[in-house]
């Protein structure tokens, strides 16, 4: 029988500083010939032995099965401890859990990816999946916002994405001397793009307030509610749809999500919490 609660052992192969307070960890299974397998948008539970467990959506491409990357913001009990880790540390991984982005539905459509802060992590995995099979999709537009230019994560990778044909728009709430792109909340970027209302998908991930205004803005520019996909964040423990921590209306974010079509959840009173 499948081990529901017992993680597989992984080793931290590399740690990258993304921004003040955000680091990425490249993980490799300890046991030789073990592969990671997940669909983009699904998440894993990462155990810090003897300490605790927290959910992360891998930020790497699902096509890379040898290694997995997770991006972690120092925000709580487990994550602050994770930030103190050194290369070579051993961790545990359970999963993958939940349903990811329905890529089949995205085929033939233009795709807006709207991300804020560390919310770019799952979107990066999505982006890499889309780029890997670019012919299947229409235009890919990444709109990304961060607090300041320093807070932008994956700084070195935007160029490569651009070269792969992704349209990239970025904004910061507060600029510094060198910033030449947009200043303002991330939603202003949506004013700069033209969309084909009937054929556009929007994928939103970021802090709750950004998700709210991002979604409302998508609706405003004409993306239908069923074409908007949200990556929800909730407290999680089991990842199996049993422990109740991630309850979201009748759904469990861990099992029925973490990706939800906006039309399915828009009436829940706690959608933006």
């Amino acid at each position, binding site marked *: 029988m499948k081990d529901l609660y017992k993680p597989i052992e992984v080793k931290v192969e590399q740690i990258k500083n993304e921004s003040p307070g955000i680091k990425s960890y490249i993980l490799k299974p300890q046991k030789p010939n073990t592969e990671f397998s997940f669909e983009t948008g699904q998440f894993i539970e990462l155990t810090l032995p003897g300490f605790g*467990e927290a959910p992360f959506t891998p930020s790497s491409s699902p096509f890379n099965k040898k290694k997995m990357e997770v991006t972690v913001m120092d925000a709580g009990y487990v994550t602050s401890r994770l930030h103190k880790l050194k290369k070579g540390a051993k961790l545990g991984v359970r999963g993958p859990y939940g349903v990811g982005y329905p890529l089949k539905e995205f085929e033939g459509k233009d795709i807006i990816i709207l991300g804020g802060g560390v919310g770019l992590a799952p979107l990066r995995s999505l982006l890499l999946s889309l780029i890997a099979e670019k012919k299947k999709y229409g235009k890919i537009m990444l709109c990304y916002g961060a607090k300041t230019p320093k807070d932008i994560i994956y700084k070195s990778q935007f160029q490569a994405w651009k070269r792969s044909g992704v349209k990239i728009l970025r904004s910061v709430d507060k600029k510094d001397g060198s910033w030449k792109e947009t200043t303002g909340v991330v939603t202003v970027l949506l004013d700069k793009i033209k969309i084909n209302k009937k054929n556009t998908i929007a994928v939103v991930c970021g802090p709750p307030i950004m998700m709210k205004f991002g979604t409302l803005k998508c609706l405003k520019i004409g993306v239908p509610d069923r074409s908007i996909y949200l990556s929800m964040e909730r407290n999680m423990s089991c990842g*199996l749809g049993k422990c109740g921590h991630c309850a979201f209306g*009748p759904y469990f974010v861990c099992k029925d999500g973490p990706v939800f079509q906006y039309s399915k959840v828009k009436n829940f009173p706690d959608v933006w919490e």
Partner: protein
Amino acid sequence: MSLSIDIKDWNSLLNKLTKKHLVYAPFAEQKFTDFKLIDNNPEEIVYNNAKTLTSLKHFLFLLKEKVTDTPSAGKIIVIGAKSCDLAALDLYDSVFLDEDYPDPFYRARRENMLIIGTDCYKLDKTCHCMTYNINPYPEKNCDLIANRISNRIIISGTSIKGEEFLEYIKKELNNIKEASGSENQKMKRQRDSISKKLKKMIRNIPDETKTAEWIKYSIDRKDNIWKKYASTCVSCGACVTGCPTCHCFLLIDLPNTKKIEKIRTQDACQYPGFEEVAAGVDPLEKHFIRFRNRYVCKYINRPQKYNHLACTGCGRCTDTCIGKIDKNEVIKALKK
């Protein structure tokens, strides 16, 4: 077929069984009964009172369980399960024996448990199973039904495991009879009269459809009512602990850095921080919303997800509440 067994023979059988298995039954504690191990005292078992203090779930879902070990469970026999607790197993099975992630720990306990249900011949003030179409006598999820009629135990099998147990009884005891017509009559009369009494008791309690409707309507419209009732709630979670359907839990990593070991421990949405995420956002942060969550979950969200109501009308939440909050009084106050 029901067997009729002299209570003395039955008790000697129970004593024998306790040598091999853990056998639990309801015993009297001051004002209530609760499941305890039979320990050379089967003559003190209270068969046909209403529910025990703690529910059946505690046999299947331990307060703490190490879930990184290999599941194992010894055979246990539980006598005296009440209909409200048995009904709750529908929800438990939906959650823990679902297709995608059947839980091996729950399964091991469930499969190794022989459940003997008993009718309720007495009622508690808070009993209201019939509000939700659950009768005050076992109709499902048990292996046998046993009732005490005068000095005899009338027992019948309701599952394959139960029938096997009956065969075992027949081998062990010489003096067994088939239950007589008058014994069966007596049991039937008990059922009828208790049902009649209970129906009268619960006539003012809204059913699950009305309840769900009123709760839905109340959200954002009747915050004042929720706030009023929540005002004496101290978030102790006793309502959740006692509830036969509540099953939320938390995984905790043992402070062992060499080997990953996780404990599953019961948790409650009524505890502050239950839904809080790392960055501090908590949908249940406001006390009255957290208080309301138990109602929304039981009558709206779980039924929508699993097709089972998450309240079986046992009344324990009302019994145990130190803030003296009566669940049904809250529901009545929400009337549209």
